[in-house]
């Protein structure tokens, strides 16, 4: 991406241009998927979707400072669609690693939100150890044949493409034999089965791949270099996540003026219990501390200091969710025995209890997260890795 020096407009000129566009085009409300797509198409067409991108791909080659001006104007108007050069995982990954052919076919549709996507990374045998995947991609004349099983895939049933990592070389160490694909999902070799979660919902799927076909031009990056492409993709994903954790399920309206835990305790007649008050204080405190950390992280990043705080957020959130579930349970007492729509408070506490594992396990367990913080932030040495330098076919599996 170009830096500010390359941008031909002044900040003020740019600001005026965005404002003019928004004044002319933005109606202030998008109703339904059709209107949304139409608006996104307009934003793309006007080159506001990805202002940091090169002009070749509907960008403007702006630097970060000017791109933030665009984003702040959109935000001020309440309009969506810009900033995709930061947030659109799929398009950014494709731009970074895709073949010319694939970019021409999919890049603009992805920006317009017309393509359904999903992630085909994790496998039953490769969770924390993502590089241990055993799904294979075998090269044929002009395509790859994919066989294996993926898991924890959201939106697999409706997706047009899945970002897939699969092993193309079994004779090199594990990180070096992986390739990265845009796999077409609507084909006979792809079978999607909903996965019933601990919470009794089915947000995720298992995906069984049996001689699924992936065209040659859907390979991103070089053959065997997929681990690097994946790191790029994961970085985009992380930058978007953060506030990803879900709150209570029941949707009971909570007083906007009061901390939910205080409201809950009041409702349960437990707000005068000194034990409960201490517990409430701890949990609200943890939440507030996390919010303060996040705010500090953002401020530090603006100043250009790279912040240790960013990587702590997920770990903190995991603790907060488990703790909040515990305290909600304590407040409800025997009331937490129940569930279902007639008992929304119990439903909340129980759902949170289980769904907290979505954060403490999903996207890297707390344990992996502590490894990362210890090694990347604090600079502590890694553990000896027994499988790092041996051909993948010799790695123990199970």
């Amino acid at each position, binding site marked *: 991406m170009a830096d500010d020096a390359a941008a031909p407009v002044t900040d003020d000129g740019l600001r005026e241009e965005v404002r003019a566009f928004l004044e002319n085009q933005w109606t202030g409300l998008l109703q339904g998927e059709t209107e949304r797509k139409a608006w996104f198409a307009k934003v793309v067409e006007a080159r506001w979707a990805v202002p940091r991108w090169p002009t070749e791909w509907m960008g403007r080659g702006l630097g970060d400072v000017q791109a933030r001006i665009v984003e702040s104007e959109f935000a001020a108007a309440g309009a969506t669609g810009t900033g995709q050069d930061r947030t659109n995982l799929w398009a950014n990954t494709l731009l970074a690693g895709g073949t010319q052919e694939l970019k021409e076919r999919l890049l603009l549709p992805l920006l317009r939100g017309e393509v359904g996507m999903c992630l085909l990374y994790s496998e039953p045998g490769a969770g924390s150890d993502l590089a*241990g995947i055993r799904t294979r991609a075998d090269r044929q004349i002009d395509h790859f044949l994919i066989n294996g099983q993926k*898991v924890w895939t959201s939106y697999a049933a409706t997706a047009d493409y899945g970002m897939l990592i699969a092993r193309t070389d079994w004779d090199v160490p594990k990180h070096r034999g992986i390739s990265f694909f845009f796999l077409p999902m609507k084909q006979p070799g792809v079978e999607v089965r909903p996965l019933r*979660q601990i919470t009794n919902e089915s947000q995720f799927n298992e995906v069984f791949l049996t001689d699924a076909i992936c065209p040659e031009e859907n390979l991103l990056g070089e053959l065997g270099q997929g681990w690097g492409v994946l790191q790029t993709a994961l970085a985009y994903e992380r930058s978007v996540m953060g506030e990803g954790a879900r709150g209570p399920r029941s949707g009971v309206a909570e007083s906007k003026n009061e901390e939910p835990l205080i409201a809950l305790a009041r409702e349960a007649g437990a707000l005068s219990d000194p034990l409960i008050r201490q517990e409430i204080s701890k949990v609200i405190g943890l939440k507030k501390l996390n919010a303060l950390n996040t705010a500090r992280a953002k401020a530090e990043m603006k100043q250009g200091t790279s912040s240790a705080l960013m990587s702590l957020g997920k770990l903190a959130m995991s603790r907060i969710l488990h703790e909040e579930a515990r305290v909600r349970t304590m407040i409800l007492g*025997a009331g937490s*025995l*129940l569930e*279902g729509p007639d008992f929304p408070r119990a439903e909340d506490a129980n759902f949170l209890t289980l769904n907290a*594992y979505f954060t403490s396990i999903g996207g890297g*367990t707390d344990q992996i997260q502590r490894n990362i913080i210890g090694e990347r932030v604090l600079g502590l040495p890694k553990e000896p890795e*027994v499988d790092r330098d041996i051909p993948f076919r010799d790695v123990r599996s199970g």
Partner: protein
Amino acid sequence: MNSLAAEERLAFQHSTARLLADRSTEVDVRRTMETPSGYDADLWKAMADLGVVGLIIDPAYGGAGAGPVEVEVVFEEAGAALLCSPLLSSGVLAAGLLQALDDEDANLRLLPAIADGSLIATAALTGPRGTWTPGAVAVRARAEGDACRLDGRASFVTHAHVADVLLVAANAADGLAIFEVEARAAGVAVTPAPTFDHTLRIAEVAFDGAPARRISTSRPAWDAVEEALSLARVALAGEQAGGGRRVLEFTVDYAKTRLQFGRAIGSYQAIKHMAADLLLESESATSAARHAAAQLAASASDAKAAVELAAFACADAFVKICADAIQMHGGIAFTWNHPAHLYLRRARSDAQLFGAAAFHRERYVCELEAAHG
């Protein structure tokens, strides 16, 4: 209280374990927990035939004449197998309450049928506050000639939906007393509530002039309730200890075989140290449950303290073991099909039934103060 000879106790334990290994497998539990009744009537019959349902009932009324130690042992097995059944409600809580009240007529009328499993009873001891203290009782009794009628609500009544008879704590003109009510009588509305622990059934019971028979007793009625609750808490403690042990077992087994980064996840300190800490929790829970049972059986002076300790220590241990076990498994235990969450659900239920941990910790201090006061 009573106790059996060690060999008899072992016989009960082994036959229960065998029966449950055979007929309360994970598949059985998952099937049974989704049925309306929530228990397997055939298995119930088999347990009654084995003597487990009438375990604590005096032989004079057709029971095995056992006591807290045997109850604890049997519930360790039930907890390990996640048994779905009204054993706690009928065989322990209701039978225990009847024997603690010791109304000869009521005993003759009810205990033999409870013991042989043909009649299911349960006890309704708290109201919407759910604290299992006399002040939380929300049923009133009024005399109507020779008979009585009940009004009000009882909450968190375990297995009321399959019970034939309810033993109801109600405030009468002369204080709190226990009343026998036919669960299907007019004026009794049993509304099952969906439970977070699918292996447990709970109902709200509304009484609207329900006909009731007062159970006579020579002691304050709540004392008898406390005695029955002590027995039920020992049963729960055993269930928690047994359940926790089982969860730790399968978690450690998984950690030995699940490989990531080319080695078993149990070789990493993060997992290994969690397992070590959980072993301490599990063994402590077992010690606490068995000690409470032994002291109660011996009517020891510290029996109440031992029960309170077991109540909070086993509850906390079972919840912690299940919660950490899910984390140790990783993604696989985030699925419905993995058994870990079934145990966590059970652990969370057990931790609330008959009083939460903070309640028992407070009562434990009271006991310690009283013991040395």
